[in-house]
């Protein structure tokens, strides 16, 4: 065959294969005018039809049953948890979030039916929005390498079936368990989700005594429609020949379900009745030797009421009867009523506060308190009683947990699975951090330090320890079309205990409001002191232009790369964001930061970039004069360009005052302070930055740099080596070490450190000149001259730092040239010229009047 011919054949073949086998002949009749073509296509169709349907369906290296150590996306399979009709279930380790999860692999039949899969995906998404302490959370439906699987909360402990196997529960305990099951059902029913397969095997009892209902709504998700044919029930198909177990599900199936009629939430009420009956008696409410007999019992017989323990109160007996009414019309309709009755009977406080059902009330109450209306309310005993009832706060009042004063928001996980969406989840994480960081009483870890944990294999308590925080927020983002869904959970670090979980769904336009709501709920939950002003900050936000917002997030994503290419891309995204929404200060601030970075890393002549950065920061402030980040960006530009130290100090202080949780302000402010020779203050500022951003290599290296400028070289070496032990892939500590060794006269070490730093800076960067300086000081003038010559040649076309060239001449003892280049450095606003008065490498020039003149021009005082 010729390639051209194959193209022809392929076209017809593709169209034929897309049709049902029965329709292919008819299609070929009209598509193939020429018999040879037809024969060719038919022989290929035959090969396709006769061949193994599994041919090449699995990649060359087998997937098979999942063995220990197998990886599915970020999950590593640890052990099988048993197979159900709805697919095999495994215990797995989530390397991204450092926790254990349960993974349910969908049967292959699903994947080959796109409609069924799509339906399942919709269901799963909805189920994942159920957040309740008594419901095992579905984290999401994911796919890797063609394997589709549900990721779910891994619940430790035994199932109620196992528990009942050991005998009936004491009445009080049975009611406690049933009460929690009712709470779970109530929360789900409120969201329109019916369990449909509630049974003792689907409810777990954790070692702490919490009840968790598993597999919520999965029966429907797997079957795909409302009416369940008993023979289609997942549990039935799963259990093979084992007679006793085959009867598992029908024994809890409501009569209408058994008849194949449409099912509503009353089916769950029925199953709940069966479950409670069994808890109290350790016997099935409806039994039979065979499937038919069991169904007959469900449809016709009454449970053996005599079997209930004598201590069962009349109220509970009555409740059971009303739950187990065969006619759904006469059955109890609302599981909420069941829950209330159980609570009244057992007179027990509700176990496991139901966040989903009572949250709105609680937030309202707390809001009132926060607003100071509290005084009135507190005066009335009743309201306190209500407060206590609505908010028993098992977490704080009696839980023995310490207060939460510091928090880390771990990178939100992107659920859509398309890798191009990373920017969105990262952006959301960033925004949440920013919102929370505004609360003065709360220390919130900055972006750089939490991003380290994206894909890290660490447990939450370990992460919390490393970041020195009391609690951790983790969550997911699903961004699809114009809708965004965020789920968030708060975990108390020391005990790895779940404090709160909620799920939110909104239009992208309301994204800022949504983030603030999440932040506000978290703040409510941890009961931190919030000032009225902060409360205003967190209450709602204007709608945003979603296109502008997405462009902004993409800009921030690229800004984080800190490469020339990344920064250029960031600028174009920020500009796009401004075009689409010129009213927001954020994109202007992003623009300012990008130009600042391009200039201070000397990718572009600073002379060009800093004025642009300044202008953008001012535009941002014109839109919102209280936008902290813009004040910091403005200060940074002025520091590099105008040398108006008073203005720099004012702007940084304003930024810190407006948002004390923004690490960057302290970090940059420290830079300014060290240039001024105010080293103790600089160290204090950088330490604050480090508390907020403990893992940022730049911030960690900065402590060493301050000590270098303070001429405390041995301490500087110690700090820099500490920084390297934390992160050996960052170039800054090597570079600063080189500077320190230079001053100590250890030129060989200096050269070696500079080389390491250069290696890490793949392309770009002018640090060749530092090498030249080192060679000059070491006495190798020839090598120094060679490098310098190369840099000078390069400087014709590209920007080279005049300051660094001046330093090489100073090291070579060529004062005349050194000053000429220093003059040029001033004109060009060389990056870090602000360190002029404290820079040890320029000491040799200090006595020269030209140096003093330059200091004066830069409004700097001579130091030392």
């Amino acid at each position, binding site marked *: 065959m010729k390639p051209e011919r194959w193209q022809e054949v392929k076209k017809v073949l*593709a169209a034929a294969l897309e049709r049902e086998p029965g329709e292919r002949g008819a299609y070929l009749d009209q598509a193939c005018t020429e018999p040879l073509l037809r024969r060719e296509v038919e022989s290929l169709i035959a090969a396709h039809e006769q061949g193994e349907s599994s041919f*090449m369906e699995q990649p*060359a290296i087998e997937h098979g049953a999942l063995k220990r150590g197998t990886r599915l996306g970020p999950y590593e399979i640890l052990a099988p948890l048993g197979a159900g009709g709805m697919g095999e279930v495994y215990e797995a380790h989530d390397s991204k979030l450092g926790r254990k999860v349960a993974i349910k692999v969908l049967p292959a039949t699903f994947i080959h039916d796109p409609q069924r899969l799509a339906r399942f995906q919709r269901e799963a998404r909805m189920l994942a929005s159920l957040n309740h302490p008594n419901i095992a959370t579905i984290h999401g439906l994911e796919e890797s390498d063609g394997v589709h699987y549900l990721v779910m909360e891994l619940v430790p402990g035994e199932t109620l079936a196992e528990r009942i196997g050991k005998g009936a529960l004491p009445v009080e305990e049975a009611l406690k368990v049933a009460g929690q099951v009712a709470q779970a059902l109530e929360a789900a029913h409120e969201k329109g989700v019916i369990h449909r397969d509630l049974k003792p095997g689907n409810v777990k009892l954790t070692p702490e005594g919490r009840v968790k209902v598993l597999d919520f709504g999965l029966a429907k998700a797997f079957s795909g429609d409302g009416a369940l044919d008993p023979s289609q029930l997942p549990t039935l198909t799963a259990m093979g020949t084992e007679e006793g177990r085959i009867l598992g599900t029908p024994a809890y199936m409501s009569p209408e379900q058994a008849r194949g009629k449409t099912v509503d939430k009353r089916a769950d009420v029925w199953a709940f009745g069966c479950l409670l009956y069994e808890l109290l008696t350790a016997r099935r409410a409806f039994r039979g030797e065979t499937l038919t007999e069991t169904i007959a019992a469900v449809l016709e017989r009454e449970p053996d009421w005599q079997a209930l323990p004598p201590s069962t109160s009349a109220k509970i007996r009555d409740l059971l009867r009303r739950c187990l009414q065969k006619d759904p019309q006469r059955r109890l309709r609302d599981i909420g009523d069941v829950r209330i009755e159980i609570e009244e009977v057992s007179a027990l406080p509700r176990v496991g506060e139901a966040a989903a059902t009572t949250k709105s009330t609680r937030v309202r109450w707390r809001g009132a308190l926060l607003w100071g209306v509290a005084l009135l309310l507190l005066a009335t005993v009743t309201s306190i009683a209500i407060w206590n009832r609505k908010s028993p706060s098992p977490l704080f009042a009696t839980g023995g947990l310490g207060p939460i004063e510091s928090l880390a928001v771990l990178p939100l996980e992107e659920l859509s699975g398309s890798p191009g969406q990373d920017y969105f989840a990262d952006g959301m994480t960033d925004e949440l951090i920013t919102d929370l960081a505004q609360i003065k009483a709360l220390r919130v870890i900055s972006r750089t330090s939490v991003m380290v944990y994206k894909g890290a294999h660490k447990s939450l308590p370990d992460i919390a320890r490393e970041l020195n925080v009391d609690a951790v927020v983790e969550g997911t983002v699903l961004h699809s079309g114009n809708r965004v869904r965020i789920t968030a959970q708060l975990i108390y670090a020391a005990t790895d205990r779940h404090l709160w979980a909620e799920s939110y769904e909104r239009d992208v336009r309301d994204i800022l409001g949504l983030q603030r709501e999440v932040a506000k709920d978290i703040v409510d939950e941890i009961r931190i002191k919030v000032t009225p002003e902060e409360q205003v900050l967190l209450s709602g936000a204007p709608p945003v232009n979603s296109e502008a917002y997405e462009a902004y997030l993409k800009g921030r994503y690229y800004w984080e790369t800190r490469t020339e*290419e990344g920064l250029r891309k960031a600028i174009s995204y920020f500009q796009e964001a401004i075009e689409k929404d010129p009213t927001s200060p954020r994109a202007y601030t992003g623009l300012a930061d990008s130009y600042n970075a391009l200039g201070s890393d000397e990718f572009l002549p600073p002379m060009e970039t800093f004025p642009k950065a300044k202008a953008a920061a001012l535009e941002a402030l014109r839109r919102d004069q209280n936008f902290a980040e813009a004040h910091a960006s403005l200060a940074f530009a002025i520091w590099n360009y105008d040398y108006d130290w008073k203005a720099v100090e004012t702007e940084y202080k304003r930024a810190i005052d407006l948002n004390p949780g923004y690490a960057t302000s302290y970090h940059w402010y420290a830079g300014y302070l060290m240039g001024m020779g105010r080293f103790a203050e600089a160290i204090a500022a950088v330490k604050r930055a480090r508390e907020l951003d403990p893992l940022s290599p730049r911030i960690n290296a900065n402590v060493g740099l301050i000590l270098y400028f303070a001429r405390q070289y041995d301490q500087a070496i110690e700090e820099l080596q500490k920084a390297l032990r934390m992160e050996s892939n960052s170039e800054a500590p090597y570079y600063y070490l080189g500077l320190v060794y230079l001053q100590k006269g250890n030129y060989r070490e200096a050269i070696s450190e500079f080389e390491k730093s250069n290696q890490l800076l793949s392309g770009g960067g002018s640090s060749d000149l530092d090498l030249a300086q080192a060679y000059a000081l070491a006495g190798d003038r020839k090598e120094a001259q060679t490098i310098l010559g190369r840099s000078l040649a390069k400087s014709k076309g590209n920007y080279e730092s005049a300051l660094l060239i001046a330093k090489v001449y100073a090291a070579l003892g060529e004062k005349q040239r050194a000053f000429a280049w220093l003059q040029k450095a001033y004109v060009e606003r060389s990056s870090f010229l602000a360190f002029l008065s404290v820079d040890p490498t320029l000491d040799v020039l200090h006595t020269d009047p030209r140096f003093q003149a330059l200091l004066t021009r830069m409004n700097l005082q001579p130091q030392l």
Partner: protein
Amino acid sequence: MCPASSGRVSKLLINWGQGDLDAREALIPLVYGELRRVARRYLGRERPDHTLQSAALVHEAYLRLVHKEPPQWQNRAHFFGVAAQLMRHLLVDHARNRRAAKRGAGAPRLSLDAQMVLPQKREVDLVALDDALNKLAGLDAQQSRLIELRFFGGLSIEETAVVLGISPATVKREWATARAWLQREMKNQDAGQ
């Protein structure tokens, strides 16, 4: 993994993404070495009957090679593209050697690892598939490449679409026709043997 080469891989990936084919050539030895290292480690750690997953393997190699770089997904896709081709060589060589060993044709020259065990239930004869793929490449280079990515590289339809710069719908169509062609070709080969 030394940090310098991590930056190098990223840079090569970016260059390749911009159409620099030399960058692709330069990547191959780096990726190949890493794939072998990762594969060996996997095999050393687990029982010999542990099955490998190509995508997991490639993914890990990727993470190790472009450690900490900004996750630019086009780069990732390109990387998987190279890796798929290398996986094909590794696996087919291995299958060929095993075949040779069975026929007693001297000591096998194992390219990956003597311990590497391919699943027993495999229906696809890798050597025959390799021959058929070479033939398909003569008819339609893109289809042959597509099979390589999906089957040997373990790429999803979407990832394959990114690497080849075509739509996922086209990937599905091309996959179906290429598969039919290969099935026929391999059957004929079999009959001819």
